[in-house]
């Protein structure tokens, strides 16, 4: 195959600085993907006249001006009722103070504000800072350095990130990369308890933000790329003691499946499916990790959490549905007992983890108000699911897709496109969405005023070849050669304002790079989010019009918040610090000449180092009257 001419060209490339190997691949043609109208499905036509979509007061109490958990409330709307900053005056927004985090890895956390103090946890080594908002320049009250094991850096699949902590009952509670959950006294910064949950010797890390609710702390592990068996635990908030532990694979007793378990779809019903839907013993190293967003439903007294991808990525090594990976569980918070489960991607072939956020809303559907959760999945579909039963009411693509040709709402199963099925010995090209999904972990926001979801997401596709891989504990267990590329149009990111009732976008704006930050939307219809090339932006939440932007020191992949300061004014806070899976080419030890680096992400992101550098800074903005 490789002719002398090829070799001659290759030699020339040596002297041309290898520009060719650093080129971002051409976008996938529009003709490669399905049109959303063709493949979106719902059990009933829209009935918007029945009522207004909003979270319940139990799950989203009135805004007290604080921001005590990453998602703002249990409904996870990331909606701020503060109205001082408006579309008319936002252009005057200016930085009030900044704070260097002392870490230049991907910063994914939300700054937390409680009792006029701001709390921030950084990427590894997971420093925690408490800043006094009552004093000029917000001086540090204390810093806590948990000193996680350095070796944990080498088993974290996708940068050494941390998605934040929460303040509750006088404690700031967060996780460390090496698998600890730690509760700090907010007054002193001293540890009240530390619980070691993960074992780095088998590749376990923790990157998720713990969910603190109802006197419990809910935590899940990472390691789906290391053959780590997923779990989700509840700890006692006062003591850190383990209350229950539910695995993502294996026998029913390990998954906490018992008499209460009533999944809606037949393919999720049966005994020990977490064993029988795998080759012998493969479930022991099968992934299904919970590294994303869990919800506590104060109305239905239920906990919901997703499960991650099955391992290895090479699907030929694990025939079967691979329960209970790439799905969602509803559980009894007290016992952990599973109530229902739904699998977004049975026998996942594309790394479509099911751990993205859920928003708990009351929404008109089929002529009545229903209690739903809305989940925006990696596989490119928005699922509206009835929360009592786990019934999918509608499933629509929100970005370019071709690996799944619609969801069958009778069986609940995706219609897989055989042309995009991955296999050993063949590179399947132009699979959409890419492995990191039409959207990765970065959560959406929802405004009850506009009735719209604000979804910052990706527009990327990939080429994929399965390769045989061996399980060696503590090393990666992936088995796929992936090269990512821009999706149709070439813009790698998009902000989509999605109307969940009408099941279509209200507006969309394009970004050059994938959006890897969450968004926050305010009652005055201002939407804030950040970009990987370092712009912090304010958009009109009704139109998508860009109202203001500010260039920070490094790309943004974190979670902005809105709070009321001690002076009574509205503030917007965000961390810069590019990194994560998509930003590894800047913050990681990665060479852009190898397109397969960082699990194939580098192919699509090799130009990012020209736009931004590694950093890590808190920015706090307000209107300039102070």
């Amino acid at each position, binding site marked *: 195959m490789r002719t002398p001419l090829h070799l001659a060209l290759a030699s020339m*490339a040596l002297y041309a600085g290898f520009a060719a190997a650093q080129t971002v691949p051409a976008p996938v043609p529009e003709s490669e993907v399905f049109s959303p109208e063709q493949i979106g499905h719902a059990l009933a036509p829209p009935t918007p006249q029945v009522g207004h979509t909003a979270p319940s007061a139990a799950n989203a109490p009135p805004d007290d001006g604080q921001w005590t958990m990453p998602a703002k409330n249990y409904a996870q709307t990331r909606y701020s009722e503060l109205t001082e900053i408006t579309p008319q005056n936002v252009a005057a927004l200016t930085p009030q103070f900044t704070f260097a985090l002392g870490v230049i890895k991907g910063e994914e956390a939300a700054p937390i504000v409680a009792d006029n103090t701001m709390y921030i946890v950084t990427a590894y080594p997971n420093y925690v800072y408490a800043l006094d908002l009552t004093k000029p320049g917000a001086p540090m009250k204390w810093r806590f350095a948990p000193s996680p094991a350095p070796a944990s850096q*080498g088993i974290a699949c996708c940068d050494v990130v941390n998605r934040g902590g929460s303040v509750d009952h006088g404690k700031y509670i967060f996780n460390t990369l090496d698998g600890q959950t730690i509760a700090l006294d907010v007054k002193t910064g001293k540890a009240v308890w530390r619980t070691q949950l993960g074992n780095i010797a088998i590749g376990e890390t923790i990157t998720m933000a713990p969910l603190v609710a109802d006197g419990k702390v809910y935590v899940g592990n990472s390691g789906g790329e290391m053959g780590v068996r997923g779990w989700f635990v509840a700890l006692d908030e006062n003591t850190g003691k383990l209350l229950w532990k539910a695995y993502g694979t294996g026998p029913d007793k390990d998954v906490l499946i018992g008499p209460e378990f009533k999944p809606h779809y037949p393919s999720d019903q049966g005994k020990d499916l977490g064993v029988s839907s795998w080759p012998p*013993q493969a479930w022991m190293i099968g992934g299904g990790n919970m590294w994303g967003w869990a919800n506590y439903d104060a109305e239905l007294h239920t906990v919901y959490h997703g499960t991650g991808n099955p391992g290895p990525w090479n699907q030929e090594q694990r025939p079967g549905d691979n329960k209970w990976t790439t799905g969602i569980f509803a559980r009894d918070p007290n016992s952990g007992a599973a109530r229902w489960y739904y699998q977004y991607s049975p026998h996942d072939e594309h790394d479509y983890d099911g751990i993205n956020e859920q928003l708990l809303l009351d929404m008109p559907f089929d002529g009545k108000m229903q209690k739903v959760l809305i989940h925006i999945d990696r596989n490119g579909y928005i699922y509206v699911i009835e929360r009592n039963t786990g019934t999918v009411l509608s499933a629509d693509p929100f970005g370019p897709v071709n690996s799944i040709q619609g969801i069958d709402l009778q069986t609940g199963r995706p219609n897989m496109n055989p042309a995009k099925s991955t296999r050993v010995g063949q590179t399947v090209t132009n699979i959409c969405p890419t492995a990191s999904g039409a959207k990765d972990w970065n959560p959406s926001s929802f405004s009850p005023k506009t009735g719209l979801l604000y979804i910052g997401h990706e527009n990327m596709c990939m080429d994929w070849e399965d390769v045989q891989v*061996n399980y060696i504990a*503590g090393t990666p*267990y992936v088995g796929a050669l992936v090269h990512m590329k821009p999706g149709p149009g070439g813009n790698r990111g998009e902000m989509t304002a999605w109307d969940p009732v009408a099941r279509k976008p209200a507006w969309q704006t394009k970004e050059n790079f994938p959006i890897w930050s969450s968004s926050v939307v305010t009652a005055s219809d201002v939407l804030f989010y950040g970009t990987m090339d370092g712009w912090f932006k304010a958009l009109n939440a009704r139109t998508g019009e860009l109202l203001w932007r500010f260039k920070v020191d490094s790309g943004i992949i974190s979670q902005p918040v809105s709070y009321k300061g001690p002076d009574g004014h509205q503030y917007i806070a965000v961390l810069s610090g590019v990194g994560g899976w998509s930003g590894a080419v800047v913050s990681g030890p990665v060479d852009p000449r*190898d397109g397969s*680096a960082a699990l194939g992400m580098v192919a699509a992101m090799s130009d990012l180092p020209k736009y931004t550098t590694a950093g890590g800074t808190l920015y706090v903005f307000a209107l300039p009257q102070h």
Partner: protein
Amino acid sequence: MCLRFHSISRTRRTAVSRASVGAALLVTALLAGCNHGPGHGATPAEQPDHFGVVESALTPGVGKSLVSEDPRAAQYYDNPDAVAAGARLFAQYNCNGCHSSGGGGMGPDLMDGGWIYGSRLAQIHQTLVEGRPNGMPAWGGKIPDQELWQLATYVRSLSLPATIAAEADDTPGQRPAVVPRAADEDAGWTPPASTTNDYGSTIEGSAYQGRAASTSSGTDQPPKSNAAPNSKGPT
């Protein structure tokens, strides 16, 4: 305690080649019992496949004479079979899971010419034997020493200009070159400047010009900045 892994290492390779989950689990359960971190288990000198430790590999700021000559390295210079074997092992032992095809990911890239713990074959071999504190497992005593040398040879080849030039597409490490003796003669040896990444070119026009932006030639390239102090001379 880790000595027992030597005795099972051949069995292990069979298990690997069959990719039998059951067998792999058995073996890896044993592997897991031997902590990957440094400072645990047997010292390298106790391991039957490894005689002696390379001296002074961690001395910073030294140009030549980082290590004394290691006679075991000699047979791996200009040895295409060793490179090919190393490339195969690189995938079998999941090295590519962290280091990709040389470009890195979970672990550092191996193709940029920057070496924290030294670039010579003996130094790379030592890194493989001992592991390194930020997540690199210690393989000494767990797989045959000859395989560690073959892996070291392949790893060394990844940053050679000949390897990178041999592949104009997006996974250079799949076409490795042999490691010349010259690559080990001077610890300050570096690839030509033209292999530096072109981060300095100007971005033209508005968004979505990523492809156009990476076409400038190598006239204004900044020197690469991530060289380790102990392994590279000035560029």
